[in-house]
């Protein structure tokens, strides 16, 4: 136990020095770090939001809205199929139907002529396509389930895997949209992760305006331009007074409470190439100017040429922002949206239009925002507590174990350096409970040495020589040290698994601390003591413990 070969000595110190080396950048001011030589690793502790300030938002996309949209599209597809094939000006093979409706989870209709039931069934079946194979290699089956009911109806229902795949792809694209929006706010290093099947976790360090962040992130921002059929009243909306192919929308402008609009959009948000906050030429009020892509510009040019004198409505998230009249054909592909904007709300809208729309708005389930000043206070308090705690532990161990206490303290200091180094290298997030974890590890790290040293004392009292007391002190304490640390490690794993933010950080720190403390307390101190013993060159040394 007390013999160390050269390579063993080398390995032990190499590990310890790598730990110290990795911890070193944390002692150097950040601004100076850049000028250090290339071989230095420059990673510092990655501070959690509770220490550096910032916002943590857990958001959920409403599945029901997505399913509803999916069902509406499906209804359109069913209608197209039943219309038959277009040959020249005529539709061939059309099937007459009644009651084509979108229910909560399915579309259903009834062929007008019961004899058409089978033909309609076959026609609708052409909509069935197999779903793409998942990354796990399982075949999820088809996109639709189609059934004939006893009362002569046909129901078309998206399958569960089809809905799941759609939600999954929607969340993926939503993450991209959220990323673009957060980037537009000029923040650094946002972290955007998917959680579960319909959630997004957004963490933005150091941004001091959580309200703006939330406003910008959660809105769907679906934009479309529609021709206005006529203005309407709240009563019309209540009675649902619309003609086929039109929909009634509430309005934010000062002229009318509602508008009836044509369903077919002139252009949508996808046709935009850019959007900027600006000021209206005559009114000098905040507006959003936009530029269309070439396809959108051509289309908008055509429509405005055909409809001079008619009003069109700008609809954002199912609400009319304004309904200007087309004064002249707009062929340049640029325009402006005026409404009841402030500079800030116009700027927000421009950001939203530039970064694209979400298919459904995001609901904020959890928000944690810490001001940078509180984070700085926490760091200062944590540092102070760690320093004082460390000094207390070091002093106590020194008094309790004398010269061997020095070895244990050297191991403790290297242990802390290794924890800091490992956290920096792994870029694991250090949270305030994480600092508590380091301080707790200081207390517990010496446990291994206490176990060993108490054992050595026992063996000495039993009359053993110094060497054999040290030998058996280390070897007999080993199984206890392992048992004790494995149990704590198990608790840490469960903590990590339970893990939400700060708690996870604590678990990581605790786990790293377990490994480093076993290494420093069991291996490093043994090496130090072995060197000391060899320097004595005598089997009957008086034990400094």
């Amino acid at each position, binding site marked *: 136990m007390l013999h160390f070969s050269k390579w063993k000595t080398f390995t032990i110190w190499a590990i310890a020095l790598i730990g110290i080396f990795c911890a070193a950048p944390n002692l150097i001011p950040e601004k100076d770090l850049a000028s250090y030589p290339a071989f230095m690793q420059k990673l510092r502790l990655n501070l959690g939001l509770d220490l550096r300030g910032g916002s943590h938002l857990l958001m959920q996309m409403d599945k029901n809205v997505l399913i509803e949209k999916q069902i509406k599209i499906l209804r359109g597809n069913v209608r197209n199929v039943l219309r038959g094939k277009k040959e020249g000006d005529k539709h061939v093979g059309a099937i007459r139907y009644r009651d084509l409706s979108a229910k909560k989870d399915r579309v259903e209709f009834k062929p007008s002529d019961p004899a058409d039931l089978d033909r309609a069934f076959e026609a609708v079946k052409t909509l069935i396509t197999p779903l793409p194979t998942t990354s796990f290699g399982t075949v999820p089956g088809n996109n639709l389930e189609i059934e004939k009911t006893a009362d002569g109806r046909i129901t078309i229902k998206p399958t569960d895997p089809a809905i799941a795949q759609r939600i999954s792809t929607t969340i993926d694209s939503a993450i991209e949209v959220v990323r673009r929006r957060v980037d537009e706010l000029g923040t650094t290093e946002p972290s955007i992760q998917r959680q579960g099947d319909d959630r997004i976790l957004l963490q933005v360090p150091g941004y001091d305006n959580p309200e703006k962040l939330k406003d910008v992130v959660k809105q769907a921002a679906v934009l479309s331009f529609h021709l206005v059929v006529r203005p309407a009243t709240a009563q019309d909306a209540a009675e649902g007074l619309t003609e086929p192919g039109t929909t009634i929308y509430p309005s934010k402008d000062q002229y009318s409470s509602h508008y009836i609009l044509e369903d077919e959009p002139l252009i949508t948000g996808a046709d935009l190439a850019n959007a900027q906050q600006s000021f209206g030429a005559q009114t000098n009020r905040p507006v959003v100017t936009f530029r269309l892509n070439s396809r959108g510009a051509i289309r908008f040019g055509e429509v405005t040429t055909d409809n001079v004198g008619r009003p069109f409505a700008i609809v954002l998230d199912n609400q009319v922002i304004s309904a200007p009249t087309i004064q002249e054909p707009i062929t340049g592909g640029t325009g402006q949206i005026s409404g009841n904007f402030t500079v800030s709300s116009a700027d927000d809208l421009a950001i939203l239009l530039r970064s694209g729309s979400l298919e459904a708005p995001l609901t*904020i389930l959890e928000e*944690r925002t810490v*001001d940078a000043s509180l984070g700085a206070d926490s760091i200062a308090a944590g540092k102070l507590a760690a320093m004082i705690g460390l000094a207390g532990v070091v002093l106590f161990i020194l008094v309790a174990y004398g010269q061997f206490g020095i070895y244990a303290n050297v191991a403790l200091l290297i242990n802390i350096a290794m924890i800091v180094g490992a956290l920096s290298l792994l870029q694991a997030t250090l949270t305030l409970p994480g600092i508590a974890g380091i301080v707790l590890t200081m207390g517990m790290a010496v446990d291994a040495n206490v176990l060993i040293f*108490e054992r050595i004392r026992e063996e000495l009292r039993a009359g053993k020589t110094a060497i054999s007391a040290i030998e058996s002190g280390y070897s*007999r304490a080993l199984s206890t040290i392992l048992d004790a640390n494995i149990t704590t490690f*198990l608790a840490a794993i469960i903590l990590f698994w339970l893990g939400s933010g700060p708690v996870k950080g604590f678990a990581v720190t605790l786990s790293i601390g377990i490994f480093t403390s076993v290494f420093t307390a069991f291996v490093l101190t043994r090496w130090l003591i072995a060197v000391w013993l060899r320097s004595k060159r005598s089997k009957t040394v008086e034990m400094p413990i």
Partner: protein
Amino acid sequence: MVFKGIDFVPHGTKIPFVSMRTITFILSALAMVASIGLFSTKGLNYGIDFIGGTSIEVRNKTGPADIADVRSKVGGLGFGDVQIQQFNDPRDVLVRIELQSGGEEANQLALDKIRVALGDGFEFRNTEVIGPTVSSELTEAGIIAVITAIIVVLIYIWLRFEWQFSLGAVLALVHDVILTIGIFSFLQLEFTLSIIAALLTIVGYSLNDTVVVYDRVRENLRKFKKMPLADLLDVSINETLSRTILTSVTTLIALVSLFVFGGEVIRGFVFAMIWGVIVGTYSSIFIASPALLLLGVKRDWSGLGGAKYKEPGTAK
């Protein structure tokens, strides 16, 4: 000249720990009953992690905060249960409002209203809004975590020792967890997600202590084949006493420093751990070890029965 340490704990003690078991068991049983009684009558002061709602720490930018002023501004907004209290620094006020009915959006709306009501004179230092979905999930995850930890530990000790040890250790753990919940209920300290983390750490620490004593018990079972179990347990506890006390002291030194200097944010968390270290140390001596006497342990350890690997001490 040799630099020796001071032996803080006298060696060769023969404290009859196990014969105190009637008293300590009754004491612990009473404390556990009291804890459960408190928990079921007074309940816990759950933080918003578990019950949802909004918690805001604001700081008056210009000087000491006027609690009455904050109360009048926020109290009139109709949020139901509103708690407003001084926090840490005279400039700081903690505002807590209960979970708003009307889903996730209602809670966000409440936050917006508070921002408007308090105006620009306050700096929002710490804002937490937890909606109904997340709070119920966190509660579930917290309970699952503590139970899983105890089960995993049960299995581990069972594998490494014998089922009696495993049961004794878990008894001690349940004791520690219940007493910790009891003190939180008694003092009505805020029970948050980080307290669950503290509970799990306590589970780890208390177990650490118990395992150290058990290891010694197992060793002595091999050494003294004829010694009555009660005496053997006493010897084992006494032999490990100095280690138990020294480790508890070093851990407490570190924790007390955190408690005093670590700031308000983690004070509850650190308090739970300090309590856990004290209770955990007590339980490994007075609960986990005497429990072996009640459960009875196998006396023949000469075979491979208990030792799943070769004892390093016997290897040469």
